[in-house]
């Protein structure tokens, strides 16, 4: 970590504005860090030349006093976002060689505001996973050291493609979380369908927010489950996340589900007093056999907010326990349809075949990894004739109930809800290899309700486990009230401090 890569996004922004540093130097420092950190496997494509050209253009604008809100700030982009002429494959084999002729709205917004693209970040294939192990490009290692590993041991494990024994950075935005935590970029785009921003944030000790459904455009973001997918940032501080989200979000006439309402200045809410806010603590999140460290952290979080002037109340979200099973019907169902376009006809992989059905079957069998294939099959099944009502329709009704629970809580005067982010700290890569797929799915147990109800959810680091691994807390807000989450998130950040992985052992 050099001086330039140790800056937060806000600090770098201010120094660029005062011309104390240049975007070229800042960008070059991050490119060098990426180069040294190849072993983490966080980036699947580095666009060094493009980054430096963008940095030079930013420097020129800054010199003229014309810089945008993110002018000259180097960031990473999850491989899920279409970036014109650049590797965009959602880390799937089936999109081999795909280079879109278009730029996603979210990334276009970032470039409009002056950000510099360092490259594309690893992720679970089509964002399906919670550990980044389903990527066609291999797993990503977290910069956090496994409890029982010395830096030397860890470096040895890094050289291995399987990265076994190293900590998973969470998923599906594992490349993003690892890169941000390891200071390879100032911030990164991520996406969250069931927890894919918040769970990796929690497991790598950084901040992530999934905004309200419809706050960011989905145009140009490879779809997983359309009614749940939302873009959002990963950053090292609440303020940085606020700055990023303000640029990423906004109305887009190309996305029918994108909100037309203007984006507030989220950064202005960072540091705002939380005095007088009412924070709900839902009893249904207290799971049987819950990790005591997580439970203690949760209580501590409530205490910090109380100390900051908020009122803590108990709330009930009775349908919470149905959220995860319902999610595992809705998300695969939508995915089975969204991923039908990967058929070997217009782009990506195509396996040779002399007959069309054979072409589809061979291409999709070899192009999709096992987790994606499994979810596509589940999704196909729950939509098929005779099962639709029992599964999909019922799950959508349960979604209404889940949303109603939150509406009642907010209707009773609760401003935000505080919950744990994950049921446990990070686990090692390969640890779940022999487990049932359902065990991995349980990672999203606290985050998935938020997607089901379309609400904003922010995860901020709040402490370390006994093993020295980061733990996070989640704040859930009213629709389009991300500002309250930033204010509360910063209050926790102030109380808990920030958490950095051990000195760059991976470099």
């Amino acid at each position, binding site marked *: 970590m050099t001086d330039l890569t140790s800056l937060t996004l806000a600090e770098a922004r201010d120094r660029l504005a005062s011309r104390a540093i240049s975007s070229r130097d800042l960008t070059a420092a991050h490119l060098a860090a990426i180069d040294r950190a190849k072993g983490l496997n966080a980036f699947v494509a580095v666009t060094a030349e493009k980054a430096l050209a963008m940095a030079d253009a930013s420097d020129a604008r800054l010199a003229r006093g014309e810089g945008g809100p993110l002018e000259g700030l180097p960031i990473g982009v999850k491989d899920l976002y279409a970036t014109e002429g650049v590797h965009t494959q959602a880390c799937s084999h089936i999109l081999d*060689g*795909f280079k*879109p*002729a278009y730029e996603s709205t979210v990334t276009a917004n970032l470039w409009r505001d002056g950000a510099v693209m360092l490259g594309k970040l690893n992720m679970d294939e089509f964002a399906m996973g919670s550990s980044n192990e389903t990527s066609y490009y291999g797993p990503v290692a977290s910069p956090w050291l496994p409890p029982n590993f010395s830096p030397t041991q860890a470096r040895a494990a890094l050289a291995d493609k399987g990265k076994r024994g190293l900590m998973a950075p969470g998923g599906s935005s594992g490349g993003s979380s690892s890169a941000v935590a390891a200071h390879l970029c100032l911030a990164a785009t991520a996406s969250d369908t069931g927890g894919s921003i918040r769970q990796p944030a929690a497991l790598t000790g950084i901040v992530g927010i999934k905004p309200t*459904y*419809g706050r960011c455009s989905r145009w140009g973001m490879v779809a997983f489950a359309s*009614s749940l997918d939302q873009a959002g940032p990963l950053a090292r501080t609440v303020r940085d996340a606020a700055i990023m989200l303000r640029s990423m979000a906004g109305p887009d*006439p190309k996305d*029918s*589900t994108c*909100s*037309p309402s203007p984006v507030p200045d989220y950064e202005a809410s960072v540091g705002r007093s939380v005095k007088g806010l009412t924070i709900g603590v839902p009893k249904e999140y207290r799971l049987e056999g819950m990790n005591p460290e997580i439970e203690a952290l949760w209580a501590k979080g409530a205490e910090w907010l109380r100390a900051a002037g908020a009122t803590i109340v108990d709330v009930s979200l009775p349908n919470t326990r*149905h959220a995860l*099973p*319902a999610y595992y019907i809705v998300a695969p169902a939508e995915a*089975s349809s969204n991923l039908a376009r990967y*058929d*070997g*006809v*217009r*782009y*990506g992989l*195509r396996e040779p075949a002399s*007959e*069309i*059905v*054979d*072409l*589809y*079957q*061979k291409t*999709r*069998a070899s192009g*999709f990894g096992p987790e994606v294939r*499994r979810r*596509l*099959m*589940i*999704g*196909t*099944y729950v939509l098929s004739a005779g099962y639709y009502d*029992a*599964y999909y*329709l*019922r*799950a*959508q*009704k*349960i*979604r*209404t*109930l889940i*949303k109603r629970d939150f509406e009642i809580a907010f209707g009773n005067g609760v401003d935000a809800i505080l919950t744990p982010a994950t049921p446990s700290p990070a686990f090692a890569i390969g640890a779940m290899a022999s487990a*049932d*797929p*359902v065990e991995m*799915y349980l990672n999203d147990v606290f985050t998935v309700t938020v997607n089901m*109800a*379309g609400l904003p959810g922010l995860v901020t680091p709040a402490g370390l486990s006994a093993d020295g691994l980061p733990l996070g807390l989640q704040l859930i807000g009213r*629709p389009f009230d991300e500002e309250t989450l930033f204010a509360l998130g910063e209050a926790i950040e102030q109380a808990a401090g920030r958490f950095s992985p051990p000195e760059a052992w991976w470099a």
Partner: protein
Amino acid sequence: MSVDLAAVRRIAHLARIGVSEAEIPHLQHEINAILAFVEALGEVDVEGVEPMTSVTPMRLPMRDDVVTDGEIAAKVLANAPLTEDGFFLVPKVIE
């Protein structure tokens, strides 16, 4: 509910994912594990509950009837595995 081997074959075919006979029992096991996980939803009382059609309270926006796109055949075809004379090519489809 659970699926049998024939159902696994049928689902794979509907999803156009080639599976070997050897893979089917394993897939069946995994699918059934997930179905068992979601089984509990069957007991939720959803009587009179509207299924969610959109999570946002928005109205569907409509655009004007103006030609604003297209005429970009090169971009449309740029990533295609096989083309000829501006067409996408696929193995012959027998009607």
